[in-house]
């Protein structure tokens, strides 16, 4: 039973954003199953997806406890509709080719590494514990993305062109990760949230170092799409949810 004493709707909404980012990126990466460029990459991308799913489960459970409405991790993952999800647009961007997926992985993993490191000091102890665990996993994910970015960027003309084009495609969606809205402001005052403005320079340094070594250009685009946090998602998001949720919805209460 969830005690009503622990209810904290602001914190619940914030943790749910983090959970949704991990859950939806994990779902996107899972689409690579049996279609990666090599068997080892199938295993790698799905191991990363599994870490993200594990993080999402801990975060969803915590969001559920903070919400105090009796919606457990499964209800939150499988029974919410599109507008109720608060994941950033970047994690739902379609996989594209392997270059685009790696570009997205680089940008998201670099963000996660700095985010979890900051949240490991959150005044929300449960969130801090989840973050301390997740940072080790995200470090490994970033290493994977860095390795591939170098290999593709500093590889053949074809691989260079592919990852540069993937990078150009996903770059505009990055800005949303660093938005500081009213919810974040309130939680910053309480020491619960990580400060997106403090994360930005750290993220930029990590990413630009890799891009420069990979002989890739930092995209120069002014378009800054946003809306994921308030439930306005990309066109493909509904299809992703349909695939993720249909089994649970078609067989309510089913167990293995």
């Amino acid at each position, binding site marked *: 039973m969830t005690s009503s004493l622990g209810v904290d709707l602001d914190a619940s909404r914030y943790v749910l954003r983090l959970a949704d980012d991990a859950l939806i990126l994990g779902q996107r990466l899972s689409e690579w199953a049996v279609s990666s460029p090599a068997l080892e990459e199938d295993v*790698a991308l799905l*191991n990363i997806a599994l870490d993200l799913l594990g993080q999402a489960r*801990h975060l969803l459970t915590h969001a559920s406890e903070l919400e105090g409405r009796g919606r457990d991790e499964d209800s939150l993952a499988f029974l919410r509709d599109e507008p109720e999800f608060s994941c950033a647009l970047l994690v739902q961007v379609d996989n594209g080719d392997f270059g685009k997926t790696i570009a997205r992985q680089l940008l998201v993993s670099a963000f996660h590494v700095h985010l979890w490191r900051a949240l490991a000091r959150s005044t929300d102890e449960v969130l801090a514990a989840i973050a301390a665990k997740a940072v080790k996993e995200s470090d*490994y994910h970033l290493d*994977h993305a860095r390795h591939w970015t170098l290999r593709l960027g500093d590889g053949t003309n074809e691989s260079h062109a592919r990852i540069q084009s993937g990078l150009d495609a996903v770059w505009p969606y990055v800005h949303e990760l660093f938005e500081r809205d009213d919810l974040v402001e309130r939680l910053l005052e309480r020491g619960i949230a990580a400060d997106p403005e403090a994360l930005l320079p750290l993220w930029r340094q990590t990413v630009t170092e890799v891009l420069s070594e990979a002989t890739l250009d930092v995209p120069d685009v002014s378009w800054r799409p946003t809306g994921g946090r308030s439930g306005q998602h990309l066109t493909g998001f509904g299809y992703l949810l349909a695939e993720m949720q249909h089994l649970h919805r078609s067989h309510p209460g089913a167990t293995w």
Partner: protein
Amino acid sequence: MTDVVMGRVTPEQVRAVLDEVHDPEIPVLTISDLGILRDVEIVGDLVLVTVTPTYSGCPAMDTIRADIRRVLQERGLACEVRTVLAPAWTTEWMTAAGREKLQAYGIAPPRPTRSGPVDVPLGLRGIRCPQCTSPDVAELSRFGSTSCKSLWRCNTCREPFDHFRAH
């Protein structure tokens, strides 16, 4: 089989019973070899067992929690299994016995993650081929059959093998 009687059971006896609980994916390791069994406490008639997951998404945790409840219930012990995330699990918590069992099972054990005195047998401080013990080995893939492993190959005997990564 350890005989235990509720009311007089000690944490040591419970730990001995819990040595029957193995990692379902690496069955040579007990949960204490792995270092995920963090605490055993007796509170009145209840055994409180605390475990810490290896990876956030480790699918073996559900089975491990169910196995803990099963072996204790078989002894008539009421128990509660708690999952605690902090401090985060590290391969430093794997016992020396656990590392030796892994190597014998064909999985190269994790290397120490920090300097200073660590409880790792000398022969297991670098990665050696679990088949022929050659130190001439190479990483094939940083990700393996489970979250905790990477895939390696021995350049001497040419056999591929799993390595339990330092974490």
